[in-house]
């Protein structure tokens, strides 16, 4: 590869949409934050910083595959087109479905949506954004008449109060968190309230953490609305002029009972009064609000408070939905969901339909919404869907009742998966695999959480025969006979068309209008700086609704009467615990990319379950035990992390692990497919589960420079693996002890009898340690114990290739070697022990001092909330004024 200059592009992870400077080097690519990008101003989180470690081509899907055979694009495209065509011919357009992704670029999304809705003639295109922000979309539309995020990221810095609801911003949107943290440090009177059943890294910044009962956000914000009215804080002028259904919403709010939150009345009042007296208040909400059977109502309960006080669309105030995907917003703008049309136009509005059909010169147009994600896979299961095309997402892991979804995909007559890897849990089920271009290879635009459109630009050539999704889709459309409508040669052509369509939408009174870009020159597009929509002849960027003009037919916002509803799954004696799910700091979604970066697996290398100490005690579960978490839908196994961060009665499990990385770590197999009646978003944080200790005969830890062959070794009942700088690491457990641990180790590391073993066997203590080596270099080392393995993992992994087998078997550094402990700062590899020792030895008092002394937290800063925990433990702070 020839060395290129630096490319400005955009991060492919969360919805913050950080600008990235990518500079190819001789052996990879240097990644840095773009100091000029308005989302991050140079900052990056741990995941973004490690992007350079995720771009190697190992394991990439490089050619189209039909029924397991590599074929050329012509044949693959023709095959897909024929299958789709046959399904439409024999079973109608609604027998075809696309399940797409918030990782698609806007141009990809636009083409997929156009093909499905305008040409195939069905609305059966849904997206993993259904799992992410569908409730926000629905709530926005009910209140504003449009799916509009009113504010901008600057509001987060200008606010006097930030309320973070159902958001672990510190881990899920780290750069926004850091912007808030920086603002708070500049302006100490700024207050932060964190509303989350769980105490998280985000709580570290909070002046007040409200650990409410799961699913009681509506009651909380109804209580706030009632308190607003009671304290005379209603903005009567704004409400009278611009808001409808205020009385109904207020009446309903007063009927609700804030005590359902389980919060102490004094906590509630502290929060309510703080909110009420802070005119500049931004209520940020994320998956804790959206992923709920009352998600839409939760959104409206929040919006109601902002509408009643007129705190919307002005600097430093407003409701703020933060999205979890790089282009969730772009998907919404292109209409790539089953209940949308395009350009924020309404599928069920004949005027809108006609306008789009005319614009596309489309032969057909569905009149009713298509199947939303959960229904879509149900339809695969029951045979209504005959042909399914999954693009860039992994529903066999991420959907609720994931085993049912996996089986539904397997049962579907014809399944196409376009992705960059052939071995995702979903790709393994495909009849046809189409190699897509990856981040760094493709070109287009994404829209972040504050409506800023940024370019993703290529700095690598697509490997093998991989192609951008828009081209893959267009080629299939062409093969189906619709070439004239899909004759795109480059993304800019699609973008122009998308922008032109948004102009029509704008003409119809819609919010999303970037028509000023519809004639954009190719060079201008290539050089496009981040730009916040709308972008029209008369308007560019800014906030919405400060002027009190909404996108409802009468121009007035709607307050929506909402009432608390319990979570769909009731806990029972049999399923007594509430399962909460979410993200970890250093992994993203189903880990297809982040699991490739060794440093991102240092932080959390195994699926785990946070359990409150009292629950753990009742369950006779100790720290680092393995636990089974089970519902009527499925069961997973995870490592117990006993902590009071998670409240009693609740267990938290991260969402990321797939069958590629753990034997039983797909948490969504446990989650039932209960959905919000309006948004169709599944309740991913509310399953009723039982937790039991899994007591294997032995626990194991292994580090190796070859991939451990867990399937080759009999008796392994649990495993989770991750890549490391020196190869691989494996946590595992088994129910049967082998006769020879040396043989076990050879099998695990794929070595024959010619290899050497060095072993330590202590049968009385139930311990065995074996290093397999070639006489000099270690191939792998395993540690077996009848209790959870206690070993200096970071030490073993870091020194796997440098220490002798015997030194490795000691499992810890010798007296003259330092032990860093588990890695806390992924960027600089600073371990917990290093930090703790520095704090003790030098009596460090602040996070900044820790950073100065150890270097931890000085790059991306994502670990800074965790660093604080190393200081002298502090009691939760109360809102002080």
């Amino acid at each position: 590869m020839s060395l290129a200059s630096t490319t400005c592009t955009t991060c492919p992870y969360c919805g913050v949409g950080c600008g990235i400077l990518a500079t190819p080097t001789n052996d990879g690519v240097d990644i840095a934050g773009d100091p000029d990008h308005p989302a991050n101003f140079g900052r990056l989180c741990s995941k973004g910083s490690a992007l350079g470690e995720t771009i190697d081509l190992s394991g990439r899907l490089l050619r189209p595959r039909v029924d397991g055979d590599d074929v050329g694009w012509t044949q693959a495209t023709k095959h897909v087109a024929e299958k789709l065509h046959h399904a439409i011919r024999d079973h109608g357009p609604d027998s075809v479905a696309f399940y797409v992704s918030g990782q698609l670029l806007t141009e990809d999304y636009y083409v997929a949506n156009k093909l499905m809705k305008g040409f195939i003639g069905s609305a059966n295109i849904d997206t993993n954004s259904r799992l992410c922000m569908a409730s926000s979309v629905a709530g926005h539309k009910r209140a504003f008449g449009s799916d509009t995020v009113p504010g901008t990221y600057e509001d987060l810095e200008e606010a006097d109060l930030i309320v973070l609801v159902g958001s672990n911003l510190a881990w899920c949107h780290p750069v926004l968190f850091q912007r808030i943290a920086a603002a708070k440090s500049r302006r100490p009177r700024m207050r932060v309230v964190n509303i989350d059943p769980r105490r998280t890294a985000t709580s570290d910044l909070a002046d007040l953490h409200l650990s409410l009962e799961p699913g009681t956000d509506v009651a909380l914000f109804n209580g706030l609305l009632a308190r607003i009215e009671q304290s005379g804080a209603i903005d009567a002028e704004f409400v009278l002029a611009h808001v409808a259904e205020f009385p109904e919403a207020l009446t309903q709010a007063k009927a609700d009972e804030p005590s359902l939150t389980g919060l102490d009345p004094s906590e509630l009042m502290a929060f309510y009064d703080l909110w009420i007296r802070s005119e500049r208040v931004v209520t940020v909400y994320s998956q804790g609000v959206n992923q709920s059977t009352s998600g839409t109502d939760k959104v409206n309960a929040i919006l109601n408070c902002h509408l009643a006080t007129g705190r919307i669309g002005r600097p430093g105030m407003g409701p703020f939905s933060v999205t979890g995907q790089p282009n969730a917003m772009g998907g919404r703008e292109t209409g790539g969901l089953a209940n949308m049309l395009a350009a924020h136009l309404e599928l069920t509005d004949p005027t809108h339909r006609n306008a789009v059909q005319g614009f596309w010169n489309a032969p057909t147009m569905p009149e009713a919404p298509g199947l939303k994600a959960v229904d879509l896979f149900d339809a695969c299961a029951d045979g209504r869907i005959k042909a399914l095309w999954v693009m860039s997402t992994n529903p066999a892991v991420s959907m609720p009742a994931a085993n049912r979804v996996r089986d539904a995909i397997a049962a579907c007559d014809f399944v196409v998966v376009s992705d960059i890897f052939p071995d995702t849990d979903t790709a393994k089920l495909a009849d046809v695999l189409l190699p897509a271009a990856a981040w760094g290879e493709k070109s287009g635009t994404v829209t972040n959480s504050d409506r800023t459109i940024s370019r993703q630009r290529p700095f690598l050539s697509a490997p093998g025969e991989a192609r951008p999704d828009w081209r893959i889709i267009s080629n299939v459309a062409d093969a189906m006979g619709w070439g004239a409508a899909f004759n795109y040669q480059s993304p800019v052509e699609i973008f122009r068309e998308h922008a032109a369509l948004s102009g029509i939408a704008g003409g119809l009174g819609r919010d999303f209008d970037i028509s000023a870009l519809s004639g954009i020159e190719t060079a201008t597009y290539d050089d496009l700086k981040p730009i916040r929509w709308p972008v029209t002849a008369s308007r560019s960027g800014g906030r919405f609704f400060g002027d009190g003009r909404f996108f409802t037919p009468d121009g007035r916002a709607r307050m929506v009467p909402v009432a608390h509803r319990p979570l769909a799954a009731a806990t029972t004696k049999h399923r007594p615990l509430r399962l909460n799910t979410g993200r970890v700091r250093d992994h993203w979604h189903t880990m297809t990319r982040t699991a490739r970066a060794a440093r991102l697996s240092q932080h959390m290398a195994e699926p785990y379950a946070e359990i409150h100490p009292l629950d753990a005690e009742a369950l006779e579960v100790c720290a680092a035990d393995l636990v089974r978490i089970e519902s009527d839908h499925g069961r997973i196994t995870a490592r117990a992390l006993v902590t009071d961060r998670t409240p009693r009665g609740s267990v938290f499990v991260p969402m990321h692990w797939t069958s590629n990385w753990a034997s039983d770590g797909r948490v969504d197999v446990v989650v039932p497919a209960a959905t919000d009646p309006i948004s169709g978003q599944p309740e991913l944080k509310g399953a009723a589960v039982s937790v039991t200790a899994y007591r294997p005969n032995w626990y194991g830890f292994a580090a190796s420079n070859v991939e451990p062959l867990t399937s080759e070794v009999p008796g392994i009942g649990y495993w989770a693996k991750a890549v490391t700088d020196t190869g691989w690491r494996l946590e595992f457990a088994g129910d049967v002890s082998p006769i020879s641990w040396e043989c076990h180790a050879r099998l695990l590391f794929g070595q024959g009898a010619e290899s050497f073993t060095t072993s330590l066997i202590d049968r009385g203590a139930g311990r065995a340690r074996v290093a397999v080596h070639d006489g000099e270099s270690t191939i792998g080392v395993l540690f077996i114990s009848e209790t959870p393995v206690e070993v200096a993992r970071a030490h073993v992994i870091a020194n796997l290739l440098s220490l002798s087998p015997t030194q490795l078997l000691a499992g810890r550094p010798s007296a003259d070697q330092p032990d860093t402990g588990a890695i806390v700062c992924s960027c600089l590899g600073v371990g917990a022990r290093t930090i703790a020792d520095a704090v003790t030895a030098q009596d460090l008092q602040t996070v900044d001092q820790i950073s100065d002394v150890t270097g931890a937290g000085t790059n991306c800063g994502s670990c800074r909330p965790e660093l604080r925990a190393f200081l002298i433990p502090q009691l939760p702070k109360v809102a002080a004024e």
Partner: protein
Amino acid sequence: MPERLVVIGAGMASGRVLEHLFEDAPGAYNVTLFGAEPRGNYDRIMLSPVLSGEKTYEEIVTHDANWYAENAVTCRFGEAVTGIDRDRKVVLSKEGETPYDKLVIATGSAPFIIPVPGKDLPGVITYRDLDDTNAMIGAAAKPGAKAVVVGGGLLGLEAAAGLKMRGMAVTVLHLIDHIMERQLDPAASQLLRSDLESRGIRVHTKANTHEIVGTDRVEAVRLDDGIEYEADIVVMAVGIRPETALAQDAGLACGRGLHVDDQMITSDENILAVGECVEHRGSCYGLVAPLYEMAKVAAKTLAGEPAAYTGSSTSTKLKVTGVNLFSAGDFAEADDREEIVFRDPGRAIYKRLVLQNDRIIGAVLYGDVTDGPWFFERLKSQTDVADVRDTLIFGPAYAEGTALDPMVAAAASRGDFHLPRRSGPNTPSASALAA
């Protein structure tokens, strides 16, 4: 007026008694030292390097003429003591009577000679002193000379290795099926055997010697099964027994060895005994470390200071260059014992610790004996090793570590992490708060 102290035996034990005595009570005694060998104290355990040619006699002398002169020791070397008259408090030798106020018996041990035909033939050599050593060195000087060593214990194997280094063809005969069975378990024994065989030493186990064949001098050794090994010399190294003849004749209480109490006093309050000749609390010792401990106590007793010897745990090293083995304590298997076994066959390293009630009671190290003394220290002190058990076999370099965290997740940090441990959900342990 100094008292008269007579010491019988100029071996390692008596040398050490005198050193301590001159330090503890200078001038308290006029000392007369009898030695059967015509030379003073030397480091008998270093005879093997002399045999192998790696050291000279001069290098292993511990006390030279100057030392005896400085301390006014009357040396009666080469003069065998023939009797003790306890009533008159004199020892008898061919030069006459020597009176004593206090007497120390340090006659050591005598090699055990198996009672087979031919055992008295010239060329049958024991391995006890410098003369034996020089006899073997002399025999090895003949090109193509062959040696048969009877006994695959510590002494026999050191002799075998030394003779091999001197160029002899060496065969070791051992009665049972693994060599050095008192010090090594079968696994370590096998490693040692492989090492010796790789040096060209033939090892024949389960070898029951039937007869030493020869007319004027030894020619061969014949086993019960008829196999014969040619031999220019036969080294008898099947064991030792305490040399108590003199004491028994004097009517001192003896069992296997000469009985002493914790002050090293025999049944006669004016007679002490140290070294391989004694039996203390039912034990006889054939290794140097207990002898030194006895010597320290005996000197105190002579100096009139309170001291007590309470017995020794022993450890063994084989002094064969290139062979590293260490053995201590009891390493037989039993139901109430547990073992920690380290195997590194690629480097011929084997380590086994035998534990009882979380205490080391036995240790066998082969190939890497660096940590032997450290294990031995814990064995002797009966240190509870439960807390360091997982790294115990890796020795002191790994013994000082802090508690390790079984959690993979680093999200655990102080202050918000509660880790009850396996010991029971009700017993949270501070050590588990490792961040």
